[in-house]
């Protein structure tokens, strides 16, 4: 049983603000991913939780208990570093048993738990080998086992998959998730790879520039981005954002996109909120996957093909008109001629509106 509560947590390095008033609640046994580009403050957050660095302001609570001033060694969190920090001068067995030996457990208990952990992680045959010169995926399993063996209620992983090759990464994603279920731990997982966050996390905290942008389930962040940053960051490629002005015509609301055309919006929460706020300048957002090309249907957005990226199972078509760009994901066989104008229809219920001035989503709480 372990919940983590971060309250107005801040960290400055000199005049640089690495983390600004972060409020985040992690539930018991939850897999929480901290996602964001380099320098967004996710590793800083992780180190604050582990106790490797001291907070400039704010509080950290484990199960409601204030641990802000508790030393790193006493917080009892498991931590897997990005480079694993394996004790290369020891055997695999000594690496695994290190935490247990530090807690002065009885030899027989240490041996029992080491062999159980070795079985789980398939490290059995390697136990008495020196931990130097082993391959990355074995080092990673040692790192996970070494932290997991002391059964910490809270487990932190700092980009543990960034050093492994793509094929093994896919295996480890499922493996990590099932390990977490077995250990029944509360996990915070730092990554810049949205695929890892999307596939493994119960909830994702998207961060940028030391500020929390949105917390939600993978689908929530994907479907209902709270602001322009989350919209552009999640998804590959990210959400298309087109500048335009709101207009109302015969009771229906729409966005005037200039040379591209006019896009009518279906009535709903967004339209209502936009109307209420009386906004004019907005950004129209829609996912590259949610576009159909249909010449027969009137009211299409017209944009010209500028570049075609073929990535095997799909085609990413880059289009532009004036200063605005759009990316569209189409099926493999999609035929696109450079320079040709395409009639685009974003899927009606998948369109999102953002306030151009504040960057916040309209009609999303």
């Amino acid at each position, binding site marked *: 049983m372990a919940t983590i509560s971060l309250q107005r947590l801040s960290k400055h390095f000199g005049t640089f603000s690495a983390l600004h008033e972060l409020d985040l609640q992690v539930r018991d046994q939850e897999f929480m991913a901290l996602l964001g580009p380099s320098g967004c403050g996710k590793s800083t957050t992780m180190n604050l939780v582990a106790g490797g660095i001291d907070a400039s302001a704010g509080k950290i609570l484990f199960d409601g208990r204030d641990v802000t001033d508790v030393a790193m060694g006493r917080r009892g969190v498991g931590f897997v570093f990005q*480079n694993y920090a394996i004790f290369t001068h020891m055997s695999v067995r000594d690496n695994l048993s290190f935490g247990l030996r*530090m807690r002065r457990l009885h030899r027989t208990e240490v041996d029992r738990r080491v062999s159980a952990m070795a079985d789980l992680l398939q490290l059995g045959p390697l136990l008495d080998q020196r931990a130097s010169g082993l391959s990355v995926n074995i080092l990673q399993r040692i790192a996970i086992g070494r932290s997991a063996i*002391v059964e910490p209620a809270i487990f932190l992983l700092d980009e543990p998959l960034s050093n492994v090759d793509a094929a093994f990464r896919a295996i480890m994603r499922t493996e990590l998730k099932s390990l977490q279920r077995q250990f029944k731990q509360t996990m915070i997982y730092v990554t810049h790879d949205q695929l890892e966050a999307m596939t493994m996390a119960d909830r994702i905290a998207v961060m940028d520039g030391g500020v929390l942008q949105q917390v939600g389930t993978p689908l929530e962040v994907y479907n209902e981005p709270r602001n322009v940053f989350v919209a552009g960051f999640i998804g590959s490629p990210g959400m298309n954002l087109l500048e335009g002005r709101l207009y109302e015509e015969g009771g229906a609301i729409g966005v005037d996109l200039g040379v591209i055309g006019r896009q009518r919006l279906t009535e709903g929460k967004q339209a209502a909120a936009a109307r209420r706020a009386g906004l004019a300048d907005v950004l129209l957002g829609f996912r590259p996957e949610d576009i159909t090309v249909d010449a027969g249907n009137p009211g299409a957005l017209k944009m010209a093909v500028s570049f075609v990226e073929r990535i095997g199972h799909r085609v990413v078509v880059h289009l532009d008109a004036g200063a605005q760009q759009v990316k569209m994901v189409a099926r493999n066989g999609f035929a696109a001629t450079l320079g040709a104008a395409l009639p685009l229809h974003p899927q009606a219920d998948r369109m999102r509106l953002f306030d151009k001035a504040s960057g916040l989503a309209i009609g999303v709480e």
Partner: protein
Amino acid sequence: MSVEAVKAPIAPVVVQAGDAEIRRLGLRLTLPAQLLLAFIVLFPLVMELYISFTDWTPLVGKNWVWAYRYWNDFDNYVEVLTNARLWGSIVRTFVVMIVCVPTELLLGLGIALLFTGDFFGKRFFYSILLMPMMVVPAVAGYMFFMLFQSGGPVNAILSALTGSQVAIAWLSHANLALAAVMIADIWQWTPLMFLILLAGLLGVPEDQLQMATLLGAGRWARLRHIVLPRISRILVIAVAIRTIEIFKIFDTLYIMTSGGPGDSTETISVYIYKVTMQDLEWSYVATIALFILVVLSAVAIPAIKRFGAAR
């Protein structure tokens, strides 16, 4: 002295077993150096061996080549094995070694550990700490000679601390003189230990220390399980350097006490120096040198082999 000579027989061993052709090429390439080495090492060695079986001294007025005329079989060897003053100097050298090397190691390690953290005036203290090492040993010897005079600063400080007049004749007291010499050595060479060990400590990965802390290791556990195993090789090198150096201790000591009072601070080097320069018993000195060479080789060769194999 003889200590360097130990390296010579080891040198060819470095050539790894391989193709006969490669070995021949290697031999040809290193031949000039080997010849030079043979001349430097072998010639004096043979000369020493020859003289050691005679009673020759430069006082007889003949060149050493004619030393066979003073042939005395194993007399010099018997003398080496039974001379109390020689054995006293050997024991004394080892006493200095056993006291100074661990003291310098522990002090050096302790200070180096302090320097891995941050504190006010770190750079200043760093320079101050390295100063003793830069002082010419003869000058350091003179410095401590002055410090330990009966009217000198050491006694003045002790007087101030105890409140009564202290006038210990440090350098004329049999045991205190040796202690004074050891204090001088520790003062001068702890910085070297510190410097070598600090270099080693800075090479210990920070993330491993952090990991150990996360896994519940305290300060001592980190030192024992992470730091010491990681710097063990450097530790061995540092201890080896100081052990060899102390075996040859001479300059500081000679200026402070000249081996006195009596022979109470006489180490091997000082003893050999005296026998060579004052008594002029060169054939006896040659025997001592050979004896030390054999004993040191017996210790050093297995050690070097094992150390080489450990890589």
